[in-house]
């Protein structure tokens, strides 16, 4: 869909945004992530691929400490965003999540109006000085979510009344509205049809200009289309990590090759 080489040339920044070292996750007695080391670049789309249950979503949830909300999950290891340890006792997970936004697999708009859905984050973080300011933030976020034209006449209709693709773009707009630095997306297109998927992918490419985007996906074509870096997970291990072109055309590990060519997975 998009020419990777062309978009890659647009990547200017090469600094590391997120650095993970020896990350392990246990769910009760299950060892879900085993010693994963990865460095995620700023202003880049990084795709996590791998068969179901390989730990890619779990690892994604480590980056904004969403695993804290699960009682049985235990995370060890070192994850740094801009050099700052996010598991440090002094880091407030609430502030961390404001900086690291997340979009989920199933669109989950709140049972509120479209406007209130987007204004939710800015309101709780006090980003708007007044009503007009908030209106601007909401409009900007909805424009970035590529949904403004469709909803500008019904901002006060319930967000749950939108179609699936619109709901997912609303959720992306909602995540963007809090001005995060990193955007985590957990299979954002798995509940969408091809047209809505195309719109969301276009949007992801847009977002790359300002954010570091990490996307978990089951579709290898999608990973190839939208990402510049790809990480392949298998049974809780990070098997291979590198440039997307490299992974898809010339994988080093035989497991990666089997997965990409469709022999396993």
């Amino acid at each position, binding site marked *: 869909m998009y020419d990777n080489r062309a978009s890659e040339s647009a990547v200017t920044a090469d600094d590391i945004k997120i650095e993970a070292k020896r990350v392990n996750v246990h769910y009760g007695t299950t060892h879900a992530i085993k010693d994963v080391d990865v460095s995620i670049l700023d202003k880049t789309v990084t795709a996590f691929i791998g068969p179901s249950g390989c730990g890619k979503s779990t690892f994604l949830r480590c980056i*904004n400490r*969403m695993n804290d*909300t699960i*009682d049985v999950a235990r995370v060890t290891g070192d994850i740094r965003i801009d050099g700052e340890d996010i598991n440090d006792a002094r880091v407030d997970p*609430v*502030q*961390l*999540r*404001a*900086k690291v*936004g*997340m*979009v*989920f697999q*199933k669109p*989950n*708009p*709140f*049972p*509120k109006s479209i406007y209130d859905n987007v204004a*939710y*984050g800015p309101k*709780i*973080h006090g980003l708007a000085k007044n009503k007009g300011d908030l209106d601007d933030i909401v409009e900007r976020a909805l424009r970035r979510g590529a949904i403004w034209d469709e909803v500008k006449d019904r901002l006060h209709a*319930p967000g*749950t009344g939108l179609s699936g693709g619109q709901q997912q773009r609303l*959720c992306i707009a*909602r*995540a963007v509205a*809090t001005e995060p630095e990193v955007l985590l997306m957990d299979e954002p297109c798995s509940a969408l049809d091809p047209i809505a998927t195309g719109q969301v992918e276009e949007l992801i490419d847009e977002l790359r200009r300002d954010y570091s985007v990490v996307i978990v996906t089951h579709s290898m074509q999608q990973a190839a289309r939208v990402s510049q870096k790809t990480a392949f997970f298998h049974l809780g291990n990070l098997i291979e990590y590198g440039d997307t072109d490299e992974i898809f055309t010339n994988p080093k590990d035989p497991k990666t090759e089997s997965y990409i060519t469709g022999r396993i997975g």
Partner: protein
Amino acid sequence: MPFYWTLAIIALLCAAGYVLGRRKAVASVGGDKRRLHSLPNFYGMNVALKGAVPAFGLLVFWLIAQPLFVEWRVSSIVSDLAVSEARDLGLVMVDVRRVADGLDTAVATGTMTASEATDIAAGDGNVRERLGAAGVALGSEVSEPVLRAAQRYRALSSTGDTLRSVAVLAVLLLGLGWAYRETDGEFRARNVVEQGVLALLLGAACIAILTTLGIVLSLIFNTIEFFSIYPASEFFFSTTWFPSFGGGSSLGILPLLWGTLYISLIALAVAVPIGLMAAIYLSEYASPRVRGIAKPALEILAGIPTIVYGLFALLTVGPALMVVFGDGGLGWMQAGTAVMTAGLVMGIMLIPFVSSLSDDIINAVPQSMRDGSYGLGATQSETVRQVVLPAALPGIVGAILLAASRAIGETMIVVLGAGAAARISPNPFEAMTTVTAKIVSQLTGDADFSSPEALVAFALGMTLFVLTLGLNVFALYIVRKYREQYE
């Protein structure tokens, strides 16, 4: 033949029919069960059902119809007597039944032979004394027509009982025979039995609905009777409640409604915030272990009989309030029984009601809503206040309305905690009373059931019924209308 024997014979014959039907079906396909349309048990069940259902149906019908028939035949004997002595026919019939039962007892205990009981006349010796010796107390000497009517009553009843047994057994055998004849390998016994099960379930549902209908109808007829002897405008708009059985009473519902609503309001003001906060704690904050202990503990409150709450109000809460608000303290309260006492205790009673329902509703809010909110950097309390509660609100409103209809219908706490004075006053430390408490007091004691003072209870009950029904319908409407919102 005694009644229980009939039952035993029906059960025995049905069991035999079951075995025979099953055997015949298996035999009809030469013992190869795979060639049967249904499993062998269904054939047996088909036979047993077709015997038992008509037989029991007839039995039940007969048990209802026979006393009516006998009563009708016997009452023609005593109706002249009732007219001549200017007595109520119903009262004479009560005498007749009592004498007939007395004769039965006398025969059963052996103080009278069976032929003596049928032939004894009022002139032959003292019937009252002889029955008294058998342990049957009669109020007055038995008159000749009553005795004759009683003897006729006994004769008709015993003939009826015999006929009943014969008829029921005949129907049973016919049913069993018919079902046995149609049994063979091709017969679709399973479908028939399934239909029988369906009819059984339908019957159970009908009984529940018809009972409700019966209750409502009995309320309606008595209410209509009340309004025919007491003006409706006075009932609904008079502000005094002063029943006097000597006549000239004033039966205005307004003071009672005021008491009901005032007490319910206080109860809800106690129960809703506490119950809701308990529910939020249990569903959002408590660890599974704490929740596993605290939720059942809270629900124990719901299992306490309301009379115990009433005692708690009378003995503990009332005196405790008196210490603060009574003459020794602020001086607002004259006695322990007051709106505030009843309202507080009723509120405690409603806490588990509100918390348990709300807890279920809050748990039903999808985890993805919470994840979405946490993912945006919201704290737990922000998530609860701005996402979870709004999503659960329709259900919570429904729970509160259901609690309100419980509060309006509550009786024992009010009887013991709120006092008995019907008055309209804004002071919550005064004694007041409610609709339910007054229904109790109007119908207990020696009320004449045709006086407006007793019949008013039905009008009160009807008002209450309409009120709580309206609340329940409204609650269901709210819950349904908004339920699908986050699916």
